[in-house]
């Protein structure tokens, strides 16, 4: 029995989830083992992709359009890799962050199902299959959102659930229209299709659904509360990884079914700009640390769409590469930041920004980690976020779209402003009620977020190999 790593990438976390659910007492170890095994699988797949450019497996031996095949190229493996590695580190972070036994028992199966769903999305070549996968993600993600069980979390989780279902149903409606027009649902069919009214409608439905799921302004309404009220590891997964799945589908779709009009590209860019500005304003006003971080996710999603629109329709192929870099950068940095924020909250006992400097406990290493992650999110060199922003602005400039450059710069300044609110809370010492408490300033639990944050910074110097890897198999539409 020899099984390709490409199928295992979906099956390993699935079996992990099953095992972790059936044996709740051993959930932690089974879960960790499954995530590790997923990492190994992805590594194996990466090797195959490096050798062959793309890997395709028709499941059940039925070739599309009748059957469903899995396909991996550079981009999908990059997304798989990001999920696996970020997921592994967040899993380590969860060991400490989830102190409640019941939370632990449910965290692992839900998280592994989430991983199953995400990996499934990254390997899928069939739009209906994508619909099922985003539902797997949605249910697992909502389960994780409300893991803390507080009223705010449940309320936010419900809001998230509504948005998720609606997004998925819009997508499903789009699938219906694709079928009406083409009589098939695989990507190859989409690529070959002539433009038509039904396909435009389908694209519109699917894109709106996906934008809702990925929380692009003004469809972001559900995100801040959901991400801010979840427990830290869940927030890290939701913000760092989950929103990327819908983004990835959007990327694939717009590559295979190009947006029919320049105006639409500009519109999406404008929504991105709106996200950057509105999210920035809200982050400036946020009273709690995790809420601020959640709003920063809104702005970062906007930034990714700015990158998408940076050079208009003509430059879409290149623009997607910039966006992909930003997606990876945000995935790593944001998960680090949420874990660090969770650590700070755990140590200090609250996460009210205005009162951080009153605390006589300073979890220094977590704060340092937070700052490192912020550097990447602000886009300061040499972080991956910086390289992403560089690519964004480079393309916009080369195309003469100075307005996108301006928005990016304003967004960057705003991010400096809202993150420095937090830094002030870390570094101010004259408002403490007493002496600085004897606190060693670090804990073993800081290692996972720190690793992520350091990765977010140093990956920037590896952008060239990353870029050449994600171009394997021509995911951005240049056919060989």
């Amino acid at each position, binding site marked *: 029995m020899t099984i390709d790593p490409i199928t295992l990438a979906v099956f390993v976390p*699935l079996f992990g989830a099953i095992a972790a659910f059936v044996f709740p007492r051993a959930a932690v170890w089974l879960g960790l083992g499954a995530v590790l095994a997923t990492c190994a699988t992805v590594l194996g797949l990466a090797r195959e992709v490096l050798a062959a450019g793309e890997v395709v497996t028709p*499941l059940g031996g039925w070739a599309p359009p009748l059957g469903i095949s899995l396909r991996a190229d550079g981009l999908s493996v990059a997304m798989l890799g990001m999920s696996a590695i970020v997921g592994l580190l967040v899993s380590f972070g969860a060991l400490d962050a989830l102190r409640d036994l019941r939370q632990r028992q449910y965290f692992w199966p*839900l998280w592994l199902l989430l991983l199953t769903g995400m990996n499934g999305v990254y390997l899928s070549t069939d739009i209906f299959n994508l619909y099922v996968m985003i539902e797997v993600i949605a249910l697992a993600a909502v*389960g994780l959102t409300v893991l803390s069980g507080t009223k705010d979390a449940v309320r936010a989780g419900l809001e998230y659930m509504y948005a998720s279902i609606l997004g998925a149903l819009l997508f499903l409606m789009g699938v219906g229209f694709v079928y009406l027009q083409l009589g098939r649902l695989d990507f190859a069919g989409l690529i070959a299709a002539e433009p038509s*009214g039904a396909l435009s409608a389908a694209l519109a439905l699917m894109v709106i659904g996906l934008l809702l799921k990925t929380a692009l302004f003004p469809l972001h309404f559900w995100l801040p509360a959901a991400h801010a009220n979840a427990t830290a590891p869940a927030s890290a997964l939701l913000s760092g990884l989950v929103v990327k799945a819908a983004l990835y589908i959007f990327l694939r779709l717009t590559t295979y079914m190009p947006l029919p009009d320049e105006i639409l590209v500009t519109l999406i860019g404008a929504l991105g700009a709106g996200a950057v500005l509105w999210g920035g304003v809200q982050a400036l006003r946020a009273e709690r640390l995790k809420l601020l971080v959640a709003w920063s996710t809104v702005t970062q999603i906007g930034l990714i769409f700015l990158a998408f629109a940076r050079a208009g329709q003509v430059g879409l192929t290149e623009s997607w590469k910039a966006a992909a870099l930003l997606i990876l950068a945000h995935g790593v940095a944001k998960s680090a930041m949420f874990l660090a924020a969770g650590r700070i909250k755990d140590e200090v006992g609250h996460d009210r920004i205005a009162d951080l400097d009153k605390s006589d406990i300073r979890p220094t290493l977590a704060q340092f980690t937070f700052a490192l992650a912020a550097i990447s999110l602000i886009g300061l060199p040499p972080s991956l976020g910086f390289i992403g922003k560089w690519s964004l602005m480079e393309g916009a400039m080369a195309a003469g779209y100075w307005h996108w450059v301006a928005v990016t710069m304003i967004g960057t300044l705003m991010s400096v402003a809202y993150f420095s609110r937090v830094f002030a809370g870390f570094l101010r010492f004259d408002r403490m009620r007493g002496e600085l408490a004897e606190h060693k300033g670090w804990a073993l639990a800081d290692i996972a977020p720190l690793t992520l944050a350091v990765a977010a910074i140093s990956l920037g110097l590896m952008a060239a190999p990353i870029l050449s890897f994600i171009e394997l198999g021509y995911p951005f539409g240049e056919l060989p």
Partner: protein
Amino acid sequence: MNDPFLLFDLLLASAVIALAVATLSVRDLFASIVLFVIFGLLSALAWVRLSAPDVALAEAAIGTGVTGALLLKTLHHMRFVTGRLGQDAAESVTPAQPVPAPVIWANAALCGLITLGLAMAFFAAPQAGPGFEALVTDAMPESGVTHPVTAVLLNFRSYDTLMEVVVLLAAVIAVWQIERGLSEAPAPALGEIWHGFARLTLPAIVVVGTYLLWKGSEAPGGAFQSGAVLAAVGLLLLLSRNYVPRPAHRGLARWAFVLGTGVFAAIALLVAGGGREVFEYPAEHAYSLILLIEGLVTISIAVTLAALFHGREPVALAIEEKRHDT
């Protein structure tokens, strides 16, 4: 075309639309749910008209039956919780911030536009155009079953179906997670007649469910419809308190939830190798493998749907009683 059924179609379509509007516009939530159930059944009828009996069965059993039961249970729970606080239980139970009228109109206009666009796109799309049917016909001999829908679900696109069962699994895990420690609204006393009814129907339902499963390989029916019907057994048992979940049953329940998914996935992997892909059942065993998978998936679906209805994970009674006291 002078199809005499067209009038029926038009009437049915208008009824479906009217019920959809009514579902969302009546004040009383209970009425709303009842209207929804009728809506679902009429939709199923429409699908029968469109020669989709499998879908109609699934919609009637799962989309309407199980969903309706879930909705009613939730309504009951909400009224119980609110009623306990001494408020008027008959009124809308969710504290609602009124949506400003302009927003409603804007949304309605937006939806109107969307509808218009979709309708235009729909009427411009090719009608009754070729789909997968030729491919399916060609592949049927190798599928191991004779009913095309079953062949699609459990062979050609079994990956989707596996993931669908995974969605169910995710749902039940999420629900158990969400309802940790939630106290239960006491079930209403249903009386002797009900118990007699339950006793009489239970075996019949089991027979029907099994029949549907068995029949699925050659005619409309199959794991999902059968699972839903069998889940009804669970519902009846739970409602009549003939079965009360105990903490000791948790382990068994977990196994039952994952049984279908696990075996389905395991078989998918095990058949691979020797030039065969994952999910590629050897033709000579395809029928038995599909039947095995369907059988186990049915059990999982039935148990899972019943568990979704029951909601919270069975917990120790002591905790439960304590919660009731407070």
